[in-house]
């Protein structure tokens, strides 16, 4: 009896030791070559993340890519991860993240610091010349291209009701407010949102960016910032001013709201509500320190990145390049209405005819790319909420607090 057990025991021991010693994953390169010799195609499995709304198009384009590259046996795993969540989901477990994923360019800094992204080194020059300079800049960090620009429409513009405001009115904020007050209508802007409120400061020449050491730079508390803050307070105190998120604008435009500032994602529903009265324009100028100053804005891009943990980096890069090439971007605009970053598609007649994207393109001259780390948003929202709440606190003190929080280590 005892002998039998010791034999079994030794056997199990040996087996388990072997199992421990032989780590998985050493078998790729030689296996692949052997397969090729046998005539079998190399099997490539790539996982791709995209937003819920983009899934159908993503599948379509990936399958087209597979059809155009028949030399390999492609398999795609699709994950529903919207751009906004990409960074958070990536950092949860980089190894489990998708090989190719889309993210907004403002997540670039964090992702590069976490060494999440492959540099675009294959066909980099072609990609740079094929896309508009602003989108290439947005997809770069420290002069290195880290992603494949996919869209260039992550900005904001002014939607207005043609029956209330004229083209002349929407040139200046004062003109808008005067006309709105006359008609008894409201002007919508989500001032308690760092993304929108920055437009006043940026317009008046303040700086909000990240330096090469990854440190946030913000000078909203200087003289120019104070001027801008005074202008925001004046705007918030105007009887025509109304705040709230996109749903307020979408619900109220055409009824009691005559114009509002938001991004292209509300374009469809605003068009639906306004019908023939729909119009879009670049942001107006505002009175700041006695002068008219053009409001600035952020212009962001959605970028496709290739995960540094990918086991098929070259193939993943080919796929990312394909998903962002001229043809794919044209198809994306056609199917989903996303503003393209590709120069040729952006200049095409279809895109030029789109009022929303045209307004966004006009505004893009006054836009900067969003180089902001996570610490900015909460204090900026707090600052906006103070002004919306008409608290009357000292602006300079509030700006100092804002800058201190934003630039804190």
């Amino acid at each position, binding site marked *: 009896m*005892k002998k039998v*057990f010791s034999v079994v*025991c030794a056997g*199990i*021991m040996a087996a*388990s*030791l072997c*199992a*421990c*010693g032989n780590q998985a994953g050493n078998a790729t390169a030689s296996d692949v070559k052997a397969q090729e010799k046998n005539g079998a195609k190399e099997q490539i499995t790539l996982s791709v993340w995209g937003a819920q709304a983009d899934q159908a198009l993503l599948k379509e384009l990936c399958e087209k890519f597979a059809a155009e590259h028949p030399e390999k046996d492609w398999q795609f795993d699709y994950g529903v991860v919207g751009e906004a969540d990409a960074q*958070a989901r990536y*950092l949860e477990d*980089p190894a489990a993240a998708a090989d190719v994923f889309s993210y907004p360019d403002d997540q670039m800094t*964090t992702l*590069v*610091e*976490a*060494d*999440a992204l*492959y*540099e675009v*080194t*294959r066909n980099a020059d072609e990609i740079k010349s094929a896309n508009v300079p602003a989108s290439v800049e947005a997809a770069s960090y420290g002069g290195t291209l880290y992603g494949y620009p996919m869209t260039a429409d992550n900005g904001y513009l002014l939607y207005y009701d043609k029956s209330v405001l004229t083209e002349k009115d929407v040139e200046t904020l004062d003109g808008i407010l005067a006309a709105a007050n006359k008609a008894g209508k409201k002007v919508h802007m989500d001032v*308690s949102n760092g993304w929108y409120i920055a437009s006043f400061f940026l317009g008046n020449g303040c700086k909000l960016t990240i330096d090469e050491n*990854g440190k946030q730079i913000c000078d909203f508390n200087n003289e120019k910032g104070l001027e801008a803050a005074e202008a925001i307070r004046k705007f918030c105190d105007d009887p025509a001013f*109304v*705040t*709230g998120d996109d*749903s*307020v604008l979408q*619900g*109220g435009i055409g009824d009691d709201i005559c114009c509002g500032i938001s991004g292209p994602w509300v374009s469809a529903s605003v068009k639906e509500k306004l019908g023939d009265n729909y119009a879009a324009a670049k942001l107006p100028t505002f009175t700041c320190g006695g002068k008219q100053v053009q409001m600035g804005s952020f212009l962001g891009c959605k970028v496709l990145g290739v995960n*540094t*943990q990918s086991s098929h*980096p*070259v193939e993943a*890069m080919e796929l990312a390049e394909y998903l962002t090439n001229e043809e794919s971007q044209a198809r994306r605009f056609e199917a989903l209405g996303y503003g393209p970053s590709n120069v040729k598609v952006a200049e095409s007649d279809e895109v030029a005819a789109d009022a929303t994207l045209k307004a966004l393109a006009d505004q893009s001259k006054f836009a900067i790319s969003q180089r902001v*780390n*996570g*610490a900015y948003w*909460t*204090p900026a*929202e*707090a*600052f906006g*909420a*103070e002004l*919306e*709440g008409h608290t009357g606190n000292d602006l300079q003190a*509030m700006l100092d*607090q*804002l800058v*201190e*929080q934003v630039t*804190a280590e």
Partner: protein
Amino acid sequence: MILLNLIYFLAEVVLACFFFGFGFKYLSHFGTLGENTQLKVWNEELQIYERTTGDNSMLILLFSVFTIAALILFIYILILLIKNVRAIIRLRKEGKHIASFRELLLDLLDKKFHITLLAAPMTTLVLFTVLPIVFMILIAFTNFDSDHQPPGELFTWTGLTNVTDVFLGNATKTHTFFGILGWTFVWAILATFTNYILGMLLAIVINHKLVKFKKMWRTLFIISIAIPQFVSLLLIARALEPAGAINVALMKAGIISAPLPFLSNTLLARICVVIINMWIGIPYTMMTFSGVLMNIPAELYESSEIDGAGVLQSFVSITLPYMIFVTAPATITTFVSNINNFNVIYLLTGGGPFALDYYQAGKTDLLVTWLYKLTVDHHDYALASTIGIFIFMIVSTVSLAVYNHTGSVKREDMFQ
């Protein structure tokens, strides 16, 4: 017993195998949590910067915890093994009967039945609760934040920096912590006792003998439970916005001329969350109290009536003591869950209105919602873990202290 020893031995082998094959390479980095970040190597053929696999501090910490647990288990089994061998030797010497494996197994269903019963819960508890908690607690002593995200940037041990940051070092964080702690307590007390008192009154009114259609009233109030809490909270949050239903209705009715800042004024927002919490919570307390009320023996009231007690006196001397006695432990649970009442706050105000003098937090934020924001939005895991430990210390101290002083614990058999 010999077979048992073999099983022990086998377990030791498996554990040793786990240790040398898997755990050791993590445990050896436990002191530093990794030294090498991912490196870039230019690959001329593929024209890409290939990455060499670097250390990942998070995985090192996680698997080190598991490896240490395996080591402890290893030592424990080793002790068992030695004891067993010694017992066998002793029994042999004395010439006594050595229990067979079958007898040992049968014993597990008889004298040692408690071990059989508790084996599964204990194993899962250790694996899925204790070890992850140890892992989380250890994070509090590192600098795992948004600037130290592996594999690009590794994090390492920083001792008590996070604790001193919260209490001494960093003025903004200290101010935020104590500000939020104060509001958390105010909120927990208000939320618990408004629900308690008003729920009790409602139950008494409905149960009063003069009230007709008792079942209908009860059902009406319970309907609000039937709607999922998050749905009603999100809807109310919408309705309270400047252009939301409530403001519009009030303006159309001519009661106010400008929208009220329900969720953007600190005081108003705090009042709003307490009131809306009442709306969400009172039906539950009403149900509990209805049950308790119906259980109070009617003879007590009858005899008090004969003795000449009025409605108020019978309430103060019979109903109230009875109810407090029965519901005290449940109320403590409610108080604790209100300290951690994530849903109401996060869905209603999101912690807002945000404050410039707070670190990434707003005036209605509770410690737990602040913790959520620090982890999910800002990846400040180390700070969040520190705060989590404090929340645990506060909650456990408060509940233990209060619980041990309740009548239901001290005089367990009073109302039987």
